[in-house]
Each structure stands twice: as structure tokens, then as C-alpha cells.
């Protein structure tokens, strides 16, 4: 394999013919992780931008091949570390399809899954909004965002046991029912969120400096977005209302009443507004899910070949003990086949192409990382803009490097 210096594509010809190459990152604070961008610049103008990724490559897909189906989920949650439950749910849905148990997932588990998905979406967008604000010099919004995010993470900790990677969604349902007192805390949060979202909006939406920095910056046309495989809020900011929740409803999203916010402008400000509107819609879904949670019920599939038997039966039933032992020591087997499962993660269409060869470990898990494709569009939208606006564009595409590099 030849190793050679960075080639730069001569698509955009500089006007003065006098360009220089500048490396931005991978330690630059506003690259939201470890992103290096090799820039060819003509004074302050970007001529070409070539994002260089891979600094956070941890081989998650390879690691997952050596783990049981249940264990693999723990590493998969670490891909998009801002929305771990989206990853877990997408993976679980895919495996459930291969197992043929999709229809048998208890309704309460599905409601909690929707609730979790929307809470993670809120928490993830909070990080995006806070850091996007900081990139543009609006420091205070960060604290408001992280306050709200902390409240959501507290709930996540209460239900799953961990703040960042709860591993709460499991193949077949959930790890356990919601703990006592959870719903009261959720009610308090639901009461707080709308006011807090109004504050967040008020801090930036009409701010003239923020508008100056984002309007008409990083224009992404719908054709370009689709060429680059951009999905999620970034695509909807360009006027294409594609959302997996509406296009291919999963876990009962078709029974909830919500809208898909879109904007036609295609600039960084449009993407900002789409995400803010999306947070309002998430609150709507959370409120509807909350109403359905009053009726108790099982949260795990009643099938001891996949789910652990209830703890109290282990001491009484020989069969339960054997199932428990088998599941812990060698996991369950999944029938051979391949499946593609997609969900709408906060960043766009997150997909898993899962292949099983009939063993107790996944044969191959290929992720379709939304951030990677969204970030790739930077090559198309950066040329012609100022270096200072590059930060705005990265922020408005909202990449998460755990997922880009995996």
C-alpha cells in the first residue's frame, strides 16, 4: 500500500492562485471530538476541506463479533455515546426480527422504549445546542442545556442504573420494570421541560449575533444532501421530510401523534430550528407515552430461551435454573440470516446490518452511522465559506465521533 501526502481535490480553484494547506484539529475544541480537517485556504476562504477521521477508531464492530448477542449490546451502546439507547434499540429490534419475536414484545416494554428514545433525543440535542452555542460564543446556553440534560440522565440512571450507558433496552424487552417513584420524577420533568425549551429558544433564536453567524452559512441543497446520504435533522433542514419514525414506524411510533418539523432554507440556522422544533415534538411524544404507562404489565418477553427467568423461580424450578445457567454461560442462539434494521437516532437514520450464522455470537454487525455520512457532506458545503464558519457547519451537522469512527 502506498503512503503518500494528502492529495487535495482541485474542484474549487482559488481566485488568487495562492493557497496554503492548513490542518485544523484533531485537538481543536470546536471539532466536537477528534476530527482533523485538512484545509486548503486562500486567505480566509476555504477552497477545499478534507475531513480526516479514524482518530477514535476502537474496533467496536470487530469486538462485537467475539461477544454473545447480549454482551455485544454493551459495546454497541458506546458508538453514539450521546444517544446510547438509540443504538441499543436498533440492535435489539434487528436481533428480534431474526429471532422472529417482534410480535411478542410486551406493549409496556414498547412504550418505555419510545419514552427512552425521546428522552435520549432531548438529552442529545441538549449537548448539541450547548456546544453549538459555545462554538459561536454564546456561553450561557451551555449551562441551561446541561442542567436539563442532567435531569434526563438522572432519570436514565434511575431506570437503567447508569448515567451514560444504561444498557436498559434488551433483546426481548427491557432489563427490568421502571423503578418505584420513577413516574413521579418523570411527571416533574415533563412539567419542567416546556418552560426550559422556551428559555433555550429565547436565548438564541432571535439573537442577532447568532443569526448573523448561522443564516446562509453552510447551505446544503436537498439534492446535495441526498447525494451525500445525509439524514436526520440535517436533511430535514433542507426540506426533505424523511424520518424513519414516520416512514417505517417501529415500536409503535405509528400510534403516537407527532409531526416532523422541516425547513426549506438548508442553512445552519434552518438545521438549528429543525432540532429545536424536534425537541418540542419529543416532549409531545413523552407526554403521550407517560399517559400509557399507568397500566402495569410485563416488560420482558415470556420466553426463557431469550430472556432470563424471573429471579424468584430459580430457587424453585429446575428448568428455570437450567435456562438461567445456559443463558449466562453461553447466551442464546439466533437463526442464520441477515437483516437491516433502521431507527431514527438524534442524528439521522441509524442502521444495523446484522448477520447471524446460527451461533451464540453475531457473525457481523455493520453499522450505518448517520454521523459519518452527515460529516462527509462537509466536503460539499465548506468550500467557498470562511474558516470561522467551518465551526458553525460542523456544529450544525452534529457529528458524534464515537459513531463516525466506531
Amino acid at each position, binding site marked *: 500500500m502506498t503512503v503518500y501526502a494528502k492529495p487535495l481535490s482541485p474542484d474549487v480553484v482559488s481566485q488568487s492562485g495562492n493557497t496554503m494547506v492548513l490542518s485544523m484539529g484533531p485537538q481543536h475544541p470546536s471539532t466536537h471530538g477528534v476530527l482533523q480537517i485538512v484545509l486548503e485556504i486562500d486567505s480566509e476562504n476555504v477552497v477545499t476541506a478534507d475531513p480526516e477521521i*479514524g482518530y477514535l477508531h476502537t474496533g467496536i464492530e470487530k469486538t462485537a463479533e467475539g461477544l454473545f448477542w447480549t454482551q455485544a449490546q454493551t459495546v454497541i451502546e458506546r458508538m453514539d455515546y450521546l444517544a446510547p439507547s438509540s443504538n441499543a434499540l436498533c440492535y435489539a429490534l434487528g436481533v428480534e*426480527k431474526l429471532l422472529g419475536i417482534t410480535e411478542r414484545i410486551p406493549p409496556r416494554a414498547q412504550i418505555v422504549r419510545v419514552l427512552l428514545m425521546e428522552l435520549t433525543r432531548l438529552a442529545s440535542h441538549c449537548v448539541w445546542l450547548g456546544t453549538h452555542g459555545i462554538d459561536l460564543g454564546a456561553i450561557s446556553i451551555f449551562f441551561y442545556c446541561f442542567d436539563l440534560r442532567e435531569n434526563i440522565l438522572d432519570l436514565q440512571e434511575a431506570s437503567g442504573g447508569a448515567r451514560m450507558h444504561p444498557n436498559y433496552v434488551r433483546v426481548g424487552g427491557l432489563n427490568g420494570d421502571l423503578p418505584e417513584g420513577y413516574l413521579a420524577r418523570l411527571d416533574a420533568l415533563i412539567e419542567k421541560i416546556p418552560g426550559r425549551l422556551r428559555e433555550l429558544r429565547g436565548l438564541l433564536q432571535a439573537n442577532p449575533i447568532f443569526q448573523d453567524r448561522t443564516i446562509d452559512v453552510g447551505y446544503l441543497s436537498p*439534492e446535495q444532501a*441526498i447525494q*451525500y446520504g445525509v439524514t436526520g435533522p440535517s436533511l430535514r433542514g433542507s426540506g*426533505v421530510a424523511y424520518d424513519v419514525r414516520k416512514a417505517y414506524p417501529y415500536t409503535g411510533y405509528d400510534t403516537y401523534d407527532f409531526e416532523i418539523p422541516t425547513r426549506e432554507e438548508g442553512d445552519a440556522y434552518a438545521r438549528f430550528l429543525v432540532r429545536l422544533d424536534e425537541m418540542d415534538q419529543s416532549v409531545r411524544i413523552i407526554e403521550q407515552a407517560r399517559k400509557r404507562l399507568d397500566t402495569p404489565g410485563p416488560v420482558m418477553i415470556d420466553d426463557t430461551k431469550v430472556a432470563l427467568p424471573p429471579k424468584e423461580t430459580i430457587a424453585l424450578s429446575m428448568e428455570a435454573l437450567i435456562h438461567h445457567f445456559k443463558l449466562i454461560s453461553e447466551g442464546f442462539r439466533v*437463526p442464520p440470516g441477515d437483516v437491516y434494521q433502521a431507527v431514527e437516532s438524534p442524528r439521522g437514520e441509524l442502521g444495523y446490518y446484522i448477520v447471524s450464522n446460527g451461533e451464540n455470537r453475531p457473525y457481523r454487525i*455493520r453499522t*450505518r452511522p448517520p454521523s459519518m455520512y452527515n460529516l*462527509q457532506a462537509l466536503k460539499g458545503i465548506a468550500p467557498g465559506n470562511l474558516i470561522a464558519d467551518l465551526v458553525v457547519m460542523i456544529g450544525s451537522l452534529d457529528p458524534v465521533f464515537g459513531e463516525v469512527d466506531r
Partner: protein
Amino acid sequence: MPSTQTPPIAGAAIDPPSLRPPIEDAVIERVEPAQLRSRLEALKAEGFAMLLDVGAVDYLQRKPRFDVVYHLLKLPAQKATVAQVGSPPRMRLLCGVEEGEPLRSVMDLWKSADWAEREIYDLFGIAFEGHDDLRRIQMPHDWVGHPLRKDYPMRGPARERAPRPSFANKSNVVAGTPPSGRTIEALQEEVKRAREQ
């Protein structure tokens, strides 16, 4: 090659996609490498405007060894409302490739193929002809091997441990002059002279 990856069980399927249960996730089609490019061109003309993903799977014991998987989505390439988008058809194209056999790149049809093809080249070692910039993307540029292949050890190749130079123990010193330019004899001579003074 030593591997910590579990060896396949005797009953494990060699070609899982051929055994898949009836799951309606996409329209699936298998093409030969020679027809791949023309088929994808035709699909693009049909309206599959978005190439969602290109992935690869290594079926070590199967012939051909690799599957390159194209996920396509039939989205309108313009502004569209929720009703206009509807439930766009999905298409999955599987293409079996033998080791060392290159595929035609589709980077000029869909720009999203750029990084996806680079990643396959990097992690599986499948080359794409006609790709502008085919170099490693996730692994370091000087990496040897393709980690997602099934015969690549799970914890990476065993590396030789470089011997640590130590002047305290003579038997450890490799013959020749150390980087400082002072041999062990010269050093001992220096110490001896210092003691005598």
C-alpha cells in the same frame, strides 16, 4: 495465524443470507461483480437517489469469500413533505467478491460511497476501481492487514517486544555500538579511570 476469535461450530451456516427467515426489510437482489456497476446505474435511474450505506461481510469458508452490500433508498431528490416521502422502498444489493478481486467504484454516482468504499478497502482489503482517493480511513496509514477479516486475530497481531537496552547487565547488550556511541567496554573503562583518580 493464532486467533482469540472463537472458531466456527461445525453446524454454523456458511452462507447465512441464503438461509434468511422471511423478514420484509428490503427488496434483496444478488448480482455478479461484472454486472454490479450497470445494475446500480439502472437503479439510480429508477429513482434510488440515496445510497444509504455500503458494507461488507467476510464469509471465510464460502466461495466467493466476501459480500459487499449496497443499501439503497428511493427518496425524491428534491424537497418533499412527509406525505410525498411516504414509506420509500428499500433495496439491498449483495455482490459476492473473491479475495483480490476489485469492484467498480460508484463514487461518481453517489458521493456517499466515498468514505464507505474507503472503509471497506481499509478494513476488508477490497479495492474499488475508479475511486479518486482510495486510502485507509479508520486505521493508521501504515497499518498492515485488514482488521475486519475473519482470519485477522481479535486482539490484533502479536507483536515482537523490542529488547530494552540495559548497560547494567552485559548479557543483554546486543553486539555493536549503542546510539550514544559509547560501547560497554568504553563505559567500564571510564568508570575504572574515575575510581583510580
